[in-house]
């Protein structure tokens, strides 16, 4: 129990938080850059989704501490997140946002 409790509270240092913020800033600049540069327009949607997913993971892992915290928290969050993603995909297929060929 003591080990679990210690694992729950072993958070990163301020230096790690600042480095993560720098990466988040660079990724945001890249996102806006990809949006404005016509060369990237053929891959605009996948590029933006990948950059957004990386930013999402960085915030959740380091700022919300899921990387260091007990895995049970990841399960409590990950379960509904997968369910939410599946529900969104199902709705979009049902309403023909995506069409299976």
């Amino acid at each position, binding site marked *: *129990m*003591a080990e*679990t*409790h210690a694992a*729950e509270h072993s*958070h990163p*240092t*301020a230096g790690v*938080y*600042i480095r*993560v*913020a720098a990466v*988040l*800033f660079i990724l*945001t600049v890249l*996102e*806006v850059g*990809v*949006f*404005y540069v016509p060369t990237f327009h053929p891959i*605009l*949607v996948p590029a*933006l*989704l990948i*950059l*957004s997913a990386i*930013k*999402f993971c960085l*915030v*959740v892992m*380091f*700022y*919300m*501490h899921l990387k260091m915290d*007990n895995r*049970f*928290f990841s399960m*409590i*969050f990950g*379960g*509904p*997140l997968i*369910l*939410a*993603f599946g*529900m*969104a995909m199902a*709705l*979009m297929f049902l*309403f023909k*946002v995506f069409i299976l060929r």
Partner: protein
Amino acid sequence: MSHAAHAEAGHQTSMGLDSRKMAFWAFIGSECLLFATLISTYLIYKGKSLEGPFPHEILNIPFTSFSTFDLLMSSLWMVLALAAVQRNDMKWAKVWLMGTAIGGLIFLGGQVWEFSHFVEHGLTLQKNMFGTTFFVLTGTHGAHVAVGVLWLLTLWVRAMQGKLTAKNAMTVEITGLYWHFVDVIWIIIFTVVYLIQ
């Protein structure tokens, strides 16, 4: 056992995890479902407006990029506030908590300006499908930011009264979880609504 220590022990589950934190993660999980519904509704009705204004005519990317940067920085200040509380450095905890709240207020001010600008250009909740889904999605997110700002200001007042110490670090951590969740939702909204037009 002191009263504070006894109260802390009272929040432990049989797994040794804090029950408040576990409950809050479950709440965040339920919020994922709420925002997934709103984002998918926006995507389903995207491009189905019969009359303008349309997204590419009205969305201001440089302005929203600044709002996104502001919210990301407020997330940094939130974790710095938590780190300060954990080492019982209440002077810096107060600074970072107020900084985070100000970051949230700047974001909300930007959203109020954006909404007013859109209404002036004829985009209202009833105008077209874009207006309906856009205002409901971003308005719900904005309401979450407003709740977060009130929560942060409450913590700041408690810190000023000397009622917030390292013993209450979990309270600040849970506030941080909420604030970062609001941030990650904005990361998705910024991409899906503003950049993928």
